[in-house]
C-alpha cells in the first residue's frame, strides 16, 4: 500500500441473490487515470459505490491511503476517519441528480458543506461552469436542465472540490462529441495537473484508449486483468482480456 492511493482487496458483494463482486482487488494511484471496463452487470457501479462508502461490502477491505474505510453495514454511521476520507473523494453517478436549486448553488454544494468562505465560492465555481460550457445557466433551476447539462453540472460539482480521488460512472454517457471531449480533457487534467486519482467506469473501449493510464477488466465479478494501458491493449495476459482486446468479448 502506497500513500496517495485508493484500493480495495478481496471485495465481495451479493445483491438480489447474485454474487456481483467476487474477491475484487483494485488500486487507484494519485495522478493516474484508471479505466474500469466490463460488461453490463459486471459489478462496476457497485464497486464504485463500495469505494465511495455508499455501500458496504460483504467481504474484503477498502483502503484510503493507509486508512481502512469500508462501510461496516448498510445503515452504518461513518467514523471520523471515514468522514474525512469521504470529503477527499467524490462519485459522479451515471444518472446524475440535480438538487432543486440553481445551477450555481448545485455546483457550490460541496464547497458550502466543507465550510469554504462565502466570498471564495464564486471564484471556484464560475471557472468550472465556464470550462464545461454551462456558466450561462448558472442562475437557472438545475432540475430543469437536460440530461447532458446535468451530467456536466455533476462533473463540475465534483471537480470544484479539494479532492484526492474522483470516481466517474459512465461520465460521458449523455453527451455529444464536443462535450465528451471537454469532460475527458477535464478528467485528464484532474489527474495529470491536479494530481487526483481518477477511476472511471466505461463501456467505451476507445475512451479507455484515449484517456486511461491504466486499465482493469472486470468480468463475472472478478478483475481478470489490470495493467498499464499500452500493456493491456498490446500484450494482454488473461484469456478473457485477450478476447476482449480482439473484440471477441462484448463489453
Amino acid at each position, binding site marked *: 500500500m502506497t500513500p496517495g492511493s485508493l484500493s480495495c482487496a478481496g471485495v465481495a458483494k451479493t445483491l438480489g441473490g447474485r454474487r456481483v463482486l467476487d474477491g475484487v482487488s483494485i488500486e487507484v494511484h494519485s495522478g493516474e487515470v484508471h479505466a474500469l471496463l466490463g460488461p453490463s452487470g459486471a459489478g462496476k457501479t457497485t464497486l464504485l459505490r463500495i469505494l465511495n462508502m455508499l455501500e458496504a461490502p460483504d467481504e474484503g477491505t477498502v483502503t484510503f491511503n493507509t486508512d481502512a474505510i469500508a462501510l461496516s453495514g448498510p445503515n452504518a454511521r461513518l467514523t471520523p476517519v471515514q468522514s474525512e476520507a469521504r470529503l477527499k473523494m467524490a462519485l459522479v453517478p451515471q444518472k446524475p*441528480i440535480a438538487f*432543486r436549486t440553481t445551477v450555481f448553488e448545485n455546483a457550490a454544494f*460541496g464547497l458550502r458543506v466543507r465550510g469554504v468562505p462565502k466570498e471564495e465560492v464564486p471564484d471556484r465555481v464560475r471557472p468550472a461552469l465556464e470550462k464545461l460550457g454551462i456558466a450561462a445557466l448558472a442562475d437557472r433551476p438545475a432540475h430543469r436542465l437536460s440530461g447532458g447539462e446535468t451530467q456536466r453540472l*455533476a462533473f463540475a460539482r465534483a471537480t470544484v472540490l479539494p479532492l484526492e480521488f474522483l470516481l466517474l460512472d459512465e461520465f460521458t454517457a449523455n453527451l455529444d462529441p464536443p462535450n465528451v471531449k471537454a469532460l475527458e480533457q477535464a478528467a485528464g487534467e484532474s489527474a495529470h495537473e491536479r494530481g487526483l486519482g481518477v477511476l472511471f467506469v466505461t463501456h467505451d473501449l476507445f475512451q479507455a484508449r484515449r484517456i486511461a493510464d491504466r486499465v482493469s477488466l472486470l468480468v463475472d465479478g472478478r478483475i481478470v486483468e489490470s495493467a498499464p494501458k499500452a500493456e493491456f491493449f498490446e500484450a494482454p495476459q488473461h484469456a478473457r482480456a485477450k478476447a476482449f482486446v480482439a473484440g471477441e468479448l462484448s463489453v
Partner: protein
Amino acid sequence: MAETSLASVAALSLLVSGTATLLAALVGVPAGAWLGSRGFRGRRVLQTLLHSLYGLPPVLLGLLLYLSLSRTGPLGSLRWLYTVQGMVLAQFLLILPFVLGLTWNAVASVDPGVRDTARTLGAHGRTFLATLVREARLGVLGAVMVGFGRAVSEVGAVIIVGGNIQGETEVLTTSIVKYTGRGDFAIAVGLGLILLAISLTIFAALTLLQGGDSK
C-alpha cells in the same frame, strides 16, 4: 358581538394556532426528517403508532390535558389550565403527529439518488438532513399546512383546556359553539365565515408558495 372583541377573538385564534403550528414545525420537521432519513429496527411499529395518533379525538386529548393541568394533576404546577399557554399546548400535542408523520413520509420519499449525491459531496449530520428537507420542501410545507388546518379548526381540546372565557381564552371555534348554544345562529354563522376566510387566505398563500416552488 362588539367589533373589537371579534377582532380580538380572531387574533387569539391566529395566535394560538399559529404558535402551536410553529412549535410543532420546530419539533416535528427535524424529528420527521431524522426518522425519514434512515432505516431502523421498529420503524413500522413507530409509524403505525404515529398514524394511529392522526385519529386521536381532540376532546379526549383535551380531557387528558385538563386532568394533567388541574391543580392535583402532574402538570398542575404550571397553572396553565384556562390559559392561552394551555390551549397552545393542547393544539401542539394534537398536530405534532401530523407534522412529524407527514414530514417523515415526505423525506423518506426523496429520491435515493439525492441522498447518495449529498453524501458523496460530503454532506452529513445536520447538513445532510437540511438537504433532504430542502428537497422535500413541498411535502414538508404540506405537513405544516395540514397541522395549521387541524389546529385552527379544532374545538374540542381548546374548549376544555381553555374554558372559553370571554376576553381571555375565547377563540373563533369555541365562540361558534357558544353562540350556537345560545341560539344566536347569525353570529355563529358569521364567525364561521370569518374562520373560513382566514383559513382560505392562509392556505391560498401557502399553496401559491408551493406552486411557485415546484416550477
